[in-house]
């Protein structure tokens, strides 16, 4: 039961962090290398708001989400929009940003543990098992956000516009869709979600200067396994990844615990690099 | 004469849309055949199916007696089928000359080892390629822009360069995808003349084209509409065929 809870918590957080990356990949056709870094920046920002400015952790999370949403808008404007056709330039800018973010994290991370104050104290008992409220709340809020995101994608006009842009950018523009506005909104939402995930994970597991890299790896795995254009696939791969990350560290200590799930994914991707749930890449 | 290229029951579906229905097509060795049809008829799809860019949903493709239904583009090229592209037909950052010399990749072929170590074979090949490329540029009237970057060429020249590139692969079957598109009358006359001369060089030509002036040099023509064949025969027959006329112009004559 505990395993289930932990899986759900981790899974939801992975999915939230990956949604933005998937949005950008499907809609713009390019990858946001800095997504893991932005996740980390969200966490660090939240931590410092709480620790240095005494801000309430929920408020700090909202602030972090808003700030990162603005960063998402900025990225769309100065990085994606001008250079969609030129992957090299996007890489240059992304790598510069990642380096800046990582250096900041390196400098700020000292020897003491940095943990964002927990989002819910206490324990609840459900069906005879005690579950920390923190996990319940993390999963709950995550689930709500995920449902909202899914609703937007599947049932709103914005979602249909996103679909149109991801299928045919020029065609969508000719249909009167403001592709820049749609792209900007999507980037903002995506990055904000990553920041929220960062805040929750920062409370759940604490901050570390390599959390950006670790999450980036998970994001890549999720999106690649799911395949191009598949939002729903990410739900499945996210949960599976959460499960693997919970199960294996139980039986294997140290680095092996995280290494084995990765080995499994390596094999899966070698066999089917285009993912399992996406649409055909080569005809 | 034997048929050089033959398709039977060629069908292609993209999702729910069927763009090619059961197409039976034949081209004889040594002829210049046209594949005509209104926009969206499936002409470029046909090219892509033959050359392996897309895999057919069903049906078979035969070339020189062998089945090539599942062959990949570079394999199709190696078998002697050359093609031009309607859009983005070139290596833009290469010069005109480099575009043509690059096209000699298969014939003569220098292996990776020969190229790397600069063996005698490699050097001889490169020399032959340079001379042969200049000949082709001469033949197609591009010699004066030899060192221009391909992306800087006017559109008509780019199309002609595309043909030069396809010729350099020494194809037995040359598939031209709307070669006259975007050309002025002078260029069109020049190109039509050049295409008709290819038969003398032993090349079988399949032309997809909109511009009806091409009818003058065609031996036979197939007309397709919405992925289905609606006419097969001579250019004169086509001019008078009621189905063709109503497809292109609507109504009856």
């Amino acid at each position, binding site marked *: 039961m505990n395993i289930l809870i932990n899986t759900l918590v981790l899974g939801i957080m992975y999915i939230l962090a990956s949604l933005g990356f998937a949005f950008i990949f499907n809609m713009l056709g390019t990858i946001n290398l800095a997504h893991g870094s932005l996740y980390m920046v969200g966490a660090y920002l939240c931590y410092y708001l709480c620790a240095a400015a005494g801000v309430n952790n929920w408020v700090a999370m909202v602030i972090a989400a808003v700030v990162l949403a603005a960063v998402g808008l900025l990225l769309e404007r100065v990085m994606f929009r001008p250079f969609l056709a030129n992957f090299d330039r996007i890489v*240059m800018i992304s*790598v510069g940003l*990642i380096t800046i973010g990582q*250096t900041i994290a390196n400098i700020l991370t000292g020897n003491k543990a940095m943990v964002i104050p927990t989002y819910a104290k206490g324990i609840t008992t459900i069906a005879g098992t005690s579950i920390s409220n923190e996990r319940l709340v993390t999963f709950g809020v995550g689930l709500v956000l995920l449902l909202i995101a899914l609703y937007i994608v599947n049932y709103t006009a914005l979602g249909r516009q996103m679909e149109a842009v991801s299928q045919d950018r020029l065609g969508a523009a000719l249909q009167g869709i403001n592709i820049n506005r749609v792209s900007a909104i999507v980037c903002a939402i995506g990055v904000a979600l990553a920041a929220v995930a960062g805040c929750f994970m920062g409370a759940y597991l604490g901050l570390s200067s390599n959390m950006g890299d670790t999450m980036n790896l998970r994001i890549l795995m999720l999106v*690649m396994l799911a395949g191009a254009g598949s939002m729903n696939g990410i739900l499945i791969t996210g949960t599976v990844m959460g499960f693997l990350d919970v199960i294996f560290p139980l039986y294997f200590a*140290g*680095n092996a615990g995280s290494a084995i799930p990765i080995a499994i994914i*390596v094999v899966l991707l070698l066999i089917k*690099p285009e993912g399992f749930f996406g649409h055909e890449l080569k005809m | 004469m034997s048929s050089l290229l033959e398709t039977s029951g060629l069908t292609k579906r993209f999702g729910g849309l069927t763009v090619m229905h059961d197409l039976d097509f034949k081209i004889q060795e040594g002829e210049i055949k046209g594949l005509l049809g209104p926009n969206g008829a499936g002409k470029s799809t046909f090219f892509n199916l033959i050359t392996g860019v897309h895999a057919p949903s069903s049906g078979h493709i035969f070339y020189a007696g062998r089945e090539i239904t599942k062959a990949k583009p570079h394999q199709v090229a190696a078998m002697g089928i050359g093609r031009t592209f309607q859009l983005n037909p070139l290596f833009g950052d290469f010069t005109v000359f480099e575009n043509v010399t*690059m096209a000699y990749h298969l014939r003569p072929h220098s292996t990776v080892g020969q190229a790397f170590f600069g063996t005698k074979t490699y050097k001889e090949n490169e020399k032959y390629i340079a001379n042969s490329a200049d000949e082709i540029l001469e033949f197609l009237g591009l010699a004066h822009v030899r060192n221009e970057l391909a992306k800087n060429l006017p559109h008509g020249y780019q199309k002609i360069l595309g043909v030069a590139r396809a010729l350099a692969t020494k194809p037995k079957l040359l598939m031209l995808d709307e070669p006259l598109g975007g050309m002025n009358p002078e260029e069109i006359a020049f190109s039509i003349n050049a295409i008709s001369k290819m038969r003398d060089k032993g090349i079988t030509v399949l032309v997809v084209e909109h511009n009806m002036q091409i009818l003058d040099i065609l031996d036979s023509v197939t007309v397709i509409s919405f992925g289905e064949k609606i006419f097969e025969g001579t250019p004169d027959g086509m001019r008078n065929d009621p189905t063709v006329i109503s497809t292109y112009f609507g109504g009856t004559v």
Partner: protein
Amino acid sequence: MKKSGFKTSLPFLILLVAFIALPMFLNSRSWIDIFVTIVFNMVAAVSLRVILLSGNLSFAQGCFMGVGAYTAGMLAVHLGLPMWLTIPLGAVMATLIGLITGWPFARLKTVYFSMGTMFMGQAIMLLISAWKAAGGAQGLNRIPSLSSELKGVAELLGVKGYQAAYFVILILAIVSLVVMFRFEHCRIGATLRALAQSEDVAASIGVNPTFYRLLAVGVACFFIGLMGGVQAHYMTSISYSSYSMNLTLWLIMYMMIGGSGKFIGPMVGAILITLVEGVSNLLTSLSGASNSEAFVAFSRWIGENSAYTPFLTAAVLLVVAYLLPTGLVGIPDTIRAAKAKRAEMREIEAMMKEGGDNA
């Protein structure tokens, strides 16, 4: 068109002379360490560019250097193989792993290749970090030292062991660079460039896209693996964290800042940035011998703030991204283009003036 052979080789000759002569004078251990690092980074950045020629950006190069290093190190530590075997075997292993992990993604669009290599690079290093035989979290230690191995020869020549090691590394690097240079400038390089410009057109002339992409990957991985293998024996102790995504990102920075359009670009980038990033170490060792108080204070200040140097490189990278996309070695071309444009504008203005006068 072939430029005059001398003009194009002049920068390389200058570099060659510098790499041979400078370490003769600046021959303390810390200086030689810096030179060695520069050489490694230089070859690694150039190998990254080989893959870029085919239109793919590989995010796993750092990892493959690590594969070379760990292979050489583990073969030496566990099987006692001699260096002249472990190092080439390291290169071979890096090539194999590079090809195996690259193959599924080389068949797909370039974006997928980048994603795939980004994942594979980190995954492989993580797997190595979990492998007991590779030393786990502590890294692989007690690898036989190249410097010690060469001590005998070195004494005969009147130099230190580590200096001799540097020259061995330099020779290997020169060989690697020459091979990669030839690779690019014969027909193979042209084929790669054609493939990068248009896969469809390249395929229509008979180029097998997957084969050529993997060829580029294979060559690049071999030489970066080679450098990795030597690095294991030079440093005698390696850890998986030095071959993580971090290294790959730095290699990308070297290449982009220097200029990905020319062969010498990544070399220039590697040299410059390695020096900038290593400046604190440099100053520390220099200040040890210095009498100037100001200098010692300055170098201590640099040392304390050395964690901030990546900001400098990142800033340069952003400037390059927006203003100088062809990199530092592209500056002469950018200037030339700007001058030509200005001359053209002046001509047009002059023509307009004449026309106006005639009207």
